[in-house]
């Protein structure tokens, strides 16, 4: 398929590989500036409290302490920040709203001094009632997280903890259906645990503020810092070195604003390195409870779907509302849905702001819908594969009315995934298999820009704002530029972003970078080629055009001039450069998120699991994931993204869950008590099926897949658990305790013991939903 490409479609080695293996790769916390001080934040252990008094005099008097700040020291009105609305105070003001919210900060000559100064700060807090679960936040008379007086008078939810409700719908639900099934599914709050906790260095000079941060989205950080500090964009410069994982967690500013204030107060550069515990206290995925009611006809074809979802968001907005609203938009999945009613509420609580996390709400909806699809299959006596194939939309068919129609061959993807796991082959005892399909939309109507410099030696520098979080963006961009220019990839440099030199990029998220930033790189290469042709025409005195295959410019009379020669003849020996610029502008339109979907990120999952009936332990023994990538620019990187995302999904499927007590204190903000997938948890076999039809809107037909593997993982396992045991567990994670109890409660479902079976042993039937 890829013969017509020189560089695209080849698994070139990661260009950051050697540096990351030898220790040469630098991360924010590795950097040192002359005179740099250490900053630390004081985070009291209360989820909700009134700040009575903070006494910093002792801390301020300590030798080696350079600055001690509370909200009172930050200005007459406390500065606030946030990516959507500036609602989070740089330091808590009058009130603490979640466990871990910082109330004071210090900068000192070294870490030990900073730590001692933090301990010397006296904080008088009056603990207030807190809510930290959907049940508590929605209970009648629950303490309110937001002040009703500060909310719009016509807001129907102003005296509740519901921050916002989103509604979508189309068609008329049928009065009569052959079968209507209603169930409720729950998804836990989970933490990203990128190994690198957030780190930031801030330094001021007459140009303004310069930061080096582990931030995923440098241009959003620039905007937020500019707004919080009252600076023009041009006076905030953001450098992003290598990032030690993020998964959405380091997308939006957290420690950066206070680091900037500390550096200003200390009069020298300040570095704040959060601990893993602080990371746990600062970022998470929203917990969700989703009720689904589905009507199908006698053939198992969906007639209508109704969803009511509640998402537990935190005490500040972050991007939580967007997560809730945007993911609900595709709640009906990749299935033909003649009528839909989708209602979802963001429910605030005294917990850390819920934020972006791989899948951006999609894993929660997918857990509900894909579990429900399986329950429908069993109720209709259909094979779980068959019911999905019957309902999947075909290419060109509408998904969400008015938005981009289906842009892939998804039935093919699901079939290939099912075949790869041997869907119709006999199962071993205690084993079951499950399928699921995931869907997500990249963020619409966004912009990415790129500059591609060609130097007089015909080597190339690509400047694009995508950060390197491990996905391999810099390798991808080199391949795209190599393909477009005919320059060998090893002569192409792709530096990490520096907002003073790198042109604008909306964000490194949403599985958008290869497609959208990649398109900007491609456009910049095309622009560079046009300029090369122009300058060559001028020096040759006749029309000329670029011959990419031979990396030269060819004049009308056949004269060939190498790229570098054209540049030198135009600008002078060893001088000048040609700078191509390009932009990708996502289509705008009157749709809920500003424009139509550039593509649908659709993925497939098939899991085979083994259940220990004595302990309730579930083990995923095989997993096949499939992603519709359009075209893999670098197939191994694509598979790696997919496999890594899948094992991340294994975490929230089997182990991961943030646990808050009744007072809202996070009980497990560390790796001892919060269990992420370890190497021995890896299934015996993990396989990835890439669907490549060259039909994406990105360079050479690419589509994104960064989140694909995570989204359908959990329901593929939950569905396999049902097949193995006849027991449906509707709440994640599938811990041994939860599964053990479910097995005990379902004594009517005999465990499939030591018998081989080729189809599901039990059918759950169309029973009412209140048993989950």
């Amino acid at each position, binding site marked *: 398929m890829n013969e017509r490409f020189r560089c695209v479609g080849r*698994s070139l*080695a*990661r260009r*950051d*590989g*050697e*540096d*990351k*293996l*030898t*220790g040469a*790769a*630098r*991360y924010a*916390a*590795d950097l040192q500036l002359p005179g740099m001080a250490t900053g630390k934040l004081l985070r009291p252990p209360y989820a909700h409290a009134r700040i009575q008094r903070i006494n910093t005099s002792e801390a301020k008097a*300590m030798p*080696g302490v350079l600055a001690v700040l509370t909200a009172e020291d930050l200005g007459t009105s406390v500065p606030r920040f946030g990516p959507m609305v500036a609602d989070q105070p740089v330091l808590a003001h009058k009130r603490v709203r979640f466990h871990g919210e910082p109330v004071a900060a210090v900068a000192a000559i070294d*870490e*030990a*001094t900073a730590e*001692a100064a933090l301990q010397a700060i006296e904080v008088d807090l009056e603990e207030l009632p807190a809510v930290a679960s959907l049940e508590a936040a929605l209970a009648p008379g629950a303490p309110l997280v937001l002040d009703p007086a500060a909310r719009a008078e016509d807001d129907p939810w102003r005296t509740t903890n519901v921050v916002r409700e989103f509604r979508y719908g189309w068609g008329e639900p049928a009065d009569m259906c052959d079968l209507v099934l209603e169930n409720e599914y729950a998804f836990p709050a989970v933490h990203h*645990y*990128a*190994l*690198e*906790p957030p780190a930031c260095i801030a330094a001021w000079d007459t140009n303004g503020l310069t930061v080096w941060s582990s931030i995923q989205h440098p241009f959003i950080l620039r905007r937020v810092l500019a707004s919080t500090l009252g600076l023009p964009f041009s006076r905030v410069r953001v450098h992003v070195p*290598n*990032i*030690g*994982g*993020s*998964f959405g967690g380091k997308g939006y500013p957290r420690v950066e604003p206070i680091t900037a204030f500390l550096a200003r107060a200390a009069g020298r550069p300040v570095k704040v*390195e959060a*601990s*893993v*515990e602080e990371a746990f206290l600062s970022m998470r995925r929203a917990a969700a409870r989703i009720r689904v009611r589905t009507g199908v006809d006698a053939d198992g074809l969906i007639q209508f779907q109704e969803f009511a979802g509640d998402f537990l968001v935190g005490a500040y907005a972050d991007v939580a509302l967007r997560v809730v609203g945007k993911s609900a938009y595709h709640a009906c999945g990749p299935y033909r849905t003649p009528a839909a009613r989708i209602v979802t509420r963001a429910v605030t609580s005294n917990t850390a702001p819920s934020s972006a996390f791989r899948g951006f709400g999609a894993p929660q909806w997918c857990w509900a819908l894909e579990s429900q699809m399986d329950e429908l299959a069993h109720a209709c006596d259909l094979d779980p594969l068959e019911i999905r194939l019957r309902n999947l939309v075909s290419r060109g068919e509408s998904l969400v009315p008015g938005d981009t129609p289906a842009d892939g061959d998804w039935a093919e993807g699901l079939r290939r995934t099912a075949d790869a796991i041997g869907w119709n082959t006999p199962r071993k005892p205690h084993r079951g298999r499950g399928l699921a399909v995931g869907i997500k939309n990249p963020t619409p109507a966004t912009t990415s820009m790129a500059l591609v410099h060609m130097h007089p030696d015909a080597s190339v520098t690509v400047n694009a704002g995508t950060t390197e*979080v*491990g*996905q*391999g963006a810099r390798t991808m961009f080199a391949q795209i530029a190599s393909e477009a220019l005919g320059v060998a990839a090893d002569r192409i440099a792709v530096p990490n972003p520096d907002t003073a030199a790198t042109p604008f990029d909306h964000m490194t998220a949403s599985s958008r970078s290869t497609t959208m930033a990649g398109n900007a790189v491609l456009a910049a290469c095309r622009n560079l080629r046009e300029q090369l042709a122009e300058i060559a025409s001028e020096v040759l005195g006749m029309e000329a055009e670029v011959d990419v295959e031979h990396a030269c410019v060819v004049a009308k009379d056949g004269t060939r001039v190498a790229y570098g020669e054209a540049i030198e003849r135009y600008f002078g020996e060893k001088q000048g450069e040609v700078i191509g610029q390009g932009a990708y502008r996502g289509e705008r339109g009157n749709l809920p998120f500003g424009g139509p979907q550039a593509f649908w990120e659709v993925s497939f999952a098939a899991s085979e699991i083994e259940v220990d009936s004595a302990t309730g332990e579930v083990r995923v023994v095989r997993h096949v994931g499939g992603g519709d990538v359009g075209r893999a620019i670098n197939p*191994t*990187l694509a598979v*790696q993204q997919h*496999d*890594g*995302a*899948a*094992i*991340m999904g294994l975490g929230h499927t089997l182990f991961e869950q943030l646990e808050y007590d009744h007072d809202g204190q996070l009980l497990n903000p*560390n*790796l*001892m008590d919060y269990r*992420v*997938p*370890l*190497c*021995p948890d*890896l299934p015996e076999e*993990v396989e990835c099926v890439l669907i490549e039809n060259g039909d994406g809107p990105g360079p050479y037909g690419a589509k994104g897949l960064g989140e694909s593997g995570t989204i359908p993982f959990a329901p593929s396992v939950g569905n396999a658990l049902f097949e193995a045991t006849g027991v449906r567990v509707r709440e994640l994670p599938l811990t041994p305790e939860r599964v053990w109890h479910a097995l005990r409660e379902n004594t009517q479902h005999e465990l499939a013991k030591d018998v081989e079976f080729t189809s599901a042993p039990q059918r759950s039937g169309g029973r009412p939903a209140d048993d989950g």
Partner: protein
Amino acid sequence: MLSQRSFALETLVNGRPYALEVGANELLLDVLRNRLGLTATKLSCGIEICGACTVLLDGRPVSACCTLAWEARGRHVETAEGLAAAGRLHPLQRAFVDHFALQCGYCTPGMLMALRALLDEEPQPTEQQIRESLKGNICRCTGYQAIIKATLAAAETMSSAGGRV
């Protein structure tokens, strides 16, 4: 400002001798990163679970985040910076490149040191042995599979090269 005893620390790091004055409660991780500028070794969980700070102390893997610097007195500390010899990648590093066994790279130096220790002990490990031996090294990006493949490949290279490379 914090009064504490300090010790003279003479140690060998990646084959190079160092003589330092270290505090009684100073961690090996901080000495490596902040005093010697060897930043390959990373801090993550801080409680000896994630393995990002794994270094070798006389050939045995330890968590530098929970090891006092003075414990390195008279001993040999090895970090990822010392793996490549004379500009040539160690077979493990080579295999990690070839098998794309890293993404963000934050766990990678610790992972390499844990695997170095494994291959010293067990030059031809089975896949199962590799899985078990890596339970103290968390990778949140790759899903581990490529790391296992790379380790098997490195073991193969090293044994066909006649033992240690």
